[in-house]
């Protein structure tokens, strides 16, 4: 995860990109104004999220290594 985050972060640094994907899970209902609320699952890959992938991956691997011990 740390390596994947690093690759995404460097890639985004060199050539910024942003995209997101959504998968519809359920339709919750229709609001009085006509809007339909939809429950979705998805993911975002942009500058901020790639930085967070990197941070979570690196810090997570550090804690994992430290906690595992020798």
């Amino acid at each position: 995860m740390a390596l994947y985050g690093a690759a995404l972060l460097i890639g985004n640094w060199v050539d910024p990109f942003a995209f997101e994907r959504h998968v519809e899970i359920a339709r919750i209902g229709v609001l009085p104004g006509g809007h339909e609320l939809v429950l979705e699952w998805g993911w975002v890959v942009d500058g901020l999220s790639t930085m967070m992938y990197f941070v979570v991956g690196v810090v997570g691997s550090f804690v994992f290594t430290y906690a595992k011990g020798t």
Partner: protein
Amino acid sequence: MKGDVRFTWFFAAFSLFAGGMLVLVSSPNTIQLIVGWELVGVASYLLIGHWWEDHANNAAAIKAFLVNKVADVGLFIGVIISGLVVGSFRFTDLLDAVEAGDSALADVGVWVGLALFVGAMGKSAQWPFHVWLPDAMAGPPRCRL
């Protein structure tokens, strides 16, 4: 953690914590953000109370969980109001509504912002939700994520 009585359990809880963080940071909508937020909260509870034979650790875990739940009410209120007003839970739709100067959102914008801020205050242990953090240090060397 080498030689710990629940060596495997620690890494299972820690993986849940890291997974919850990834769900949180990759979420494109506020509902998924809540799912990741709560996964992190549950994993925190499990990690703080890892050595539950010691009553202090057990109490610290329950304290952290309850304080976070109180603050999470703010997060829920903010997400529900913004979702109902804008008609979508996507961040992009929320930002579009803000940029477009949505009058309905403008009416409740401050309260939505404050409610979301209360949720963040709980998770980041800001006053008055700071009380759980010192006790949480009783747990194993978990992440400072």
